[in-house]
């Protein structure tokens, strides 16, 4: 059975702790750029937690929204890459072949979610972070675009393991770094082609929405949120 990987983000559960952000940095060898670079918009994050405030003082309401690559089925980033660095994998992921990237940055401009990170300089890791690089993930160099891969290294190793043991992948056998580290279980990763997986169940919830779904990018990330009207109905 072919897989279609998806992620569910339960906004009603997210506390905005940013553990997912840290876990993603550690898993995927994402460099930290430092204060000065971050201040001018060079932050490198494959997942970020957006904060929005609703209402005025003294009763503001804060909402957190983790935003990562939506792994769109109709991805605006893929068509525009002249060198096939961003391409669609057979399992429906938005792949990014670092070695093919020449750094036109067209994909990042075309992405409505602004989830792509560009290596403006060669990456550096402050000591002792340089000692914890993940050997399963390639380190990117200057001039290259990168973004969330749904932890493709974990997907691949689980698939290879299952194939070696001549069995199907089980739901929950592995997960992405962000979902693994989410204390409130706001992030759930799995196979959308498996109707019994937790991610399939959650994705068909009545609370499910897509981020900028109206653009027709067909994201594979689903957001769960109790709408304002539901709040009103339930008092």
């Amino acid at each position, binding site marked *: 059975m072919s897989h279609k990987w998806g992620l569910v983000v339960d906004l009603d559960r997210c506390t905005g702790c940013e553990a997912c952000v840290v876990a993603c940095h550690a898993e995927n060898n994402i460099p930290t750029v430092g204060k000065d670079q971050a201040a001018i918009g060079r932050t490198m994050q494959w997942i970020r937690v957006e904060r929005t405030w609703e209402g005025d003082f003294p009763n503001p309401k804060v909402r957190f929204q983790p935003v990562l690559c939506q792994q769109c089925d109709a991805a605006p980033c893929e068509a525009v890459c002249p060198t096939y660095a961003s391409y669609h994998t057979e399992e429906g992921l938005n792949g990014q072949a670092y070695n093919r990237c*020449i750094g036109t940055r067209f994909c990042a401009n075309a992405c409505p979610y602004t989830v792509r990170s560009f290596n403006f300089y060669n990456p550096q890791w402050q000591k002792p972070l340089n000692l914890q690089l993940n050997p399963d993930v390639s380190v990117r160099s*200057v001039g290259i675009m990168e973004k969330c891969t749904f932890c493709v290294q974990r997907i691949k190793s689980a698939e290879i393991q299952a194939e070696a043991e001549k069995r199907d992948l089980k739901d929950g056998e592995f997960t992405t770094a962000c979902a693994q580290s989410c204390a409130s279980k706001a992030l759930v990763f799995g196979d959308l082609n498996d109707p019994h997986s937790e991610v399939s169940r959650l994705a068909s919830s009545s609370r499910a929405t897509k981020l900028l779904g109206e653009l027709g990018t067909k994201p594979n990330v689903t957001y769960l949120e109790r709408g304002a009207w539901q709040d009103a109905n339930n008092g």
Partner: protein
Amino acid sequence: MQITAEQIEKDLLRPIFKTGRKYLVAVGLATSLVLAGMAAFGYQVYTGIGVWGINSPVFWAFDITNFVFWIGISHAGTLISAILRLTNATWRRPVTRCAEAITVFSLLIGGLIPLCHIGRPWLGYWMIPYPSQRGIWPNFRSPLEWDFFAIATYLIGSTTFLYLPAIPDFAAVRDAAKGLRKRIYSILSLGWQGTPRQWQRLEIAMHIMAIAIVPVAVSVHTIVSWDFAMTLIPMWHTTIFGPYFVVGAIFSGVAALILAMALLRRFLHLEEYLKPLHFNNLGKLLLTMSLLWFYCIFAEFLTTWYGNTPSEMAVFWENVRHNFAPLFWTMVVCNFVIPVPILAMKKLRTVTGTAIASCTIVIGMWIERFLIIVPALDHKFLPYSWGTYRPTLVEDILMASTFGFMTLLYLSFTKFVPMISVWEMKVGLQPRGGGILTTEAPGEKRHGLVLEGPLPTDVEE
């Protein structure tokens, strides 16, 4: 005063054989700008493109602004020259060469910019489809790939278009020169003898090129606009971009042409050739383009405002009222408010008048390119990721160097080719059958030459 063929040849070939002090100073200045640009580019490659002001979400800024600007300028030459040739507008004769040269050089510069702007410039050749060990073709769905082909086609086409009518002039230089220069021009003139057969073939070739180059020119800037219009980004994703870019390109191109002509007239002393008539006629064209440009931007912004989509309105207000408002209104003043009255009034449509209008238009059109790119990028859909942009010194130097490069190429060109087509001027000289033609320089044998239009027409109003 009637100019003679001898006089034409003497006047127009003079810059090739004589070099003044002012010329050397200008070349020196332009060269130093180019060198500064090369140093800045070297620094950028060595350190990383982070030395630019681009960031997330403004991944394109000065680089692509300059790219679109220069590709736009390139529409001055070939397109106008081709249309004037096809419509037999005989006043074009002294204009075409300087126009076509602008096209070729600004295309060279415009085409170079994407190569310098990518994160790994040393891999730029991966845009070229060639069988390689990587076993992968470029992505033909990418508008950048379309750009590559469009610009390459236009460059080849406009170089040919510049070269063809220059052949008889190369022959004229060959006959006037000695030594190494004679050898070089012998090669360049491809054995031109000025036989009727050669004239006929040249005319046919030029006619074919003039017809072929028009759709190519239109398609090039349409495709450049599709770099933006093919994305989903608010204020980029619009159908008007194709025609709007073509209009803007011709607009800025004609302005650049008038500026170049005014400078050539002044410094090469071509007052007898580039007459107020030419500035008057091109000024009328510029006026039309200014009105068309205003129509396009009005249609674009009105539609956006009336539709009132929040994501588009964010960019709209950025332009009209917020961060970029000073630039936006400067652009409107430069492209419309100043030039239209100047160009509309016959009294002001002089050499100086059109040159001033062209000056503001070139500035205004550069700002226009910038405003198309940056405000849309820094106000994409999700407000959390909104950003802003500030150019760095490296980007400023690179931009200045593109102007230096253009100047250098243009100045060098005046040393190799007569900036006004000698033989075409002679064709327009006197009534059929000719009497004033005394010397028989090659490229001037008039029998068998297919003359276009009534002659003579280079009369002042």
